[in-house]
């Protein structure tokens, strides 16, 4: 088997590393090491206290019945079996969340990508447009939520008013309608998501594509779409992968937007996984079952991320690969 050379990833250390280290560290090296540990000590303490400790604790809780006011009692896999075979709301929330993820992630990434392509062109007022596209992503989640509740208000909201007086259409109840609540939230997520940091990352990626490739393409007479599909997309595929991984991780955890706008309703239409988890742990105070739900999510995210990374070998192209 031929082992692929890895790209110079951000994980690689400074170049000084390549020197073979002596078996016993010199006094200076040992001093340097201790100082290094001292500097990263805050993170190490925090990582143990706020990440590793809680992680293990929640794993333990997930195998217990823990109603907060009493001590946890061990019940084995009961919480997990409950989730999988008894809790209908669990599957409902899984389904809503997957529906959310498979719409918001691709639409968001495609939207951000084309926004970046558009803003990368030499058009007048480019910088201003970049800021205008970016501003919605700066709106605090809750502020965006109440803002859109007002815009999509069924009777006097601006969207339905325009639909009625300009087109004579009676608009749906948007967030108050079981059919339209999810699409409404997707709209809000795209408003805040398209011009976000993701767009800036794409812009940075676009600027790193060598102009020669486009020039060569022009000589061969490729059209706009071919240029995007055969030059831009492969060249920035690492950026797409990063955004895909982060996007899926984020979308599976959607909470605040739905919690504030619809509280999961109407008729569970926007009852996402995290809402179920919150309800279980912090309203019903069933900490054991809540932890099981959390671990289920964690493992799902881990597996999805690993699958994406392994699949990425087929479609992600690292330009720096040969240099190594």
């Amino acid at each position, binding site marked *: 088997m031929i082992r692929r050379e890895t790209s110079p990833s951000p994980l690689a250390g400074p170049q000084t590393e390549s020197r073979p280290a002596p078996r016993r560290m010199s006094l200076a090296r040992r001093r340097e090491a201790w100082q290094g540990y001292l500097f990263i000590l805050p993170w190490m303490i925090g990582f143990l206290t706020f990440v590793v400790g809680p992680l293990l*604790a929640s794993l333990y809780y997930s195998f217990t019945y823990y109603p907060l006011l009493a001590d946890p009692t061990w019940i084995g896999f009961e919480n997990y079996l409950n989730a999988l075979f008894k809790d209908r709301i669990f599957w409902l929330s899984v389904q809503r969340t997957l529906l959310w993820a498979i719409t918001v992630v691709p639409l968001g990434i495609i939207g951000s990508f084309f926004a970046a392509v558009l803003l990368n062109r030499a058009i007048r007022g480019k910088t201003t447009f970049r800021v205008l596209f970016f501003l919605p992503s700066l709106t605090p989640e809750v502020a965006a939520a109440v803002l859109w509740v007002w815009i999509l208000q069924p009777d006097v909201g601006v969207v339905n008013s325009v639909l009625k007086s300009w087109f004579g259409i009676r608009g749906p109840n948007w967030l108050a309608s079981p059919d339209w609540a999810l699409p409404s939230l997707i709209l809000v997520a795209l408003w805040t998501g398209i011009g976000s940091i993701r767009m800036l990352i794409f812009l940075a990626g676009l600027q790193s594509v060598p102009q020669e490739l486009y020039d060569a393409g022009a000589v061969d007479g490729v059209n706009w779409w071919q240029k995007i599909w055969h030059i831009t997309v492969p060249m920035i595929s690492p950026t797409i992968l990063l955004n895909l991984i982060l996007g899926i991780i984020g979308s599976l955890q959607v909470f605040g937007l739905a919690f504030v706008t619809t509280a999961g309703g109407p008729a569970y239409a926007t009852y996402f996984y995290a809402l179920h988890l919150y309800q279980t742990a912090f309203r019903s105070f069933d900490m054991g079952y809540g932890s099981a739900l959390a671990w289920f999510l964690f493992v799902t995210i881990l597996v999805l991320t690993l699958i994406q990374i392994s699949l990425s070998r087929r479609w992600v192209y690292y330009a720096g690969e040969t240099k190594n």
Partner: protein
Amino acid sequence: MQTSQSLNSPPGGKLANQGVNRGHRLRREIGNLLLFALTAALALGFMFPFFWSISSSLKTGFEAMAYPPTLLPKVPQWSNYVEAWNAADLGQFFINSLFVTGLSLVGQITSSFLVAYGFARFRFPGRELLFILCLSGMMMPVYVTIIPLFTMFRYLGLINTYVPLILPTYFGSAFSIFLLRQFIMSIPLDLDESALIDGANRLTILTRIIMPNCRPALAAVAIVGFMSSWDAFLGPLIFLDSVKKYTLPLGLWFLKGTIDDALPRDHLLMAGAMIATFPVLIVFVFAQKYFVQGIVMSGIKG
């Protein structure tokens, strides 16, 4: 097509060539105009919710609820902001948010900077592994740790205080550490070494050499830290009980829940949404230049 044609055309066809070029230029001109129009239309679409929210926040309660809605308020009711600030307690929420965000920001920047320096400039066994562990923190859903954190802080009697919101920021945030480390590594090592020869210690190097060179990354970290703390919803929702202690996002949610149809208060809610948004915009406008630079130079491209 145009280009390849003109390249293939024999040297004699100079006139025809110019004609092609003129058509080409015209088409480019029209194309640019269309692109400009498209971009402007999209920008307008992105901006409209802001405009609508500001316009609504300046209407009287009944004007805001009127059908059909008017584009602009008859007389801008600037007093709405005063009313929202006072009557709806948003002033208190704003001050609470400022307090939490301020202390979190100090903690996050200082600790992340120290840790990033440690990862970037020192050689020690296990460094790569520890750094990967640090990054893995970014991938972890908050929900796996929030339940034990809740029980822990409850055990310590710290529920309904700001400690659970502020304390964890003093131990570095994975994203900030990553960004700063990437940036520090782009600063030439020679600067450090010559300072070391001159007898400077590591802390002096950090404050005199690394810090001044890190401004764009620090600005990016500050914005991201400000936003994550200012926008935080789940943490305050879980850890704060009494309304008096609510942060601004929580307060907005609370205010939304108290609106009833008898007394239209949506205009106040819109004022509240804008009060929550303005500080972020102000911070962004000040640090905008550095922010983009910091993101781009850290090389986050995958």
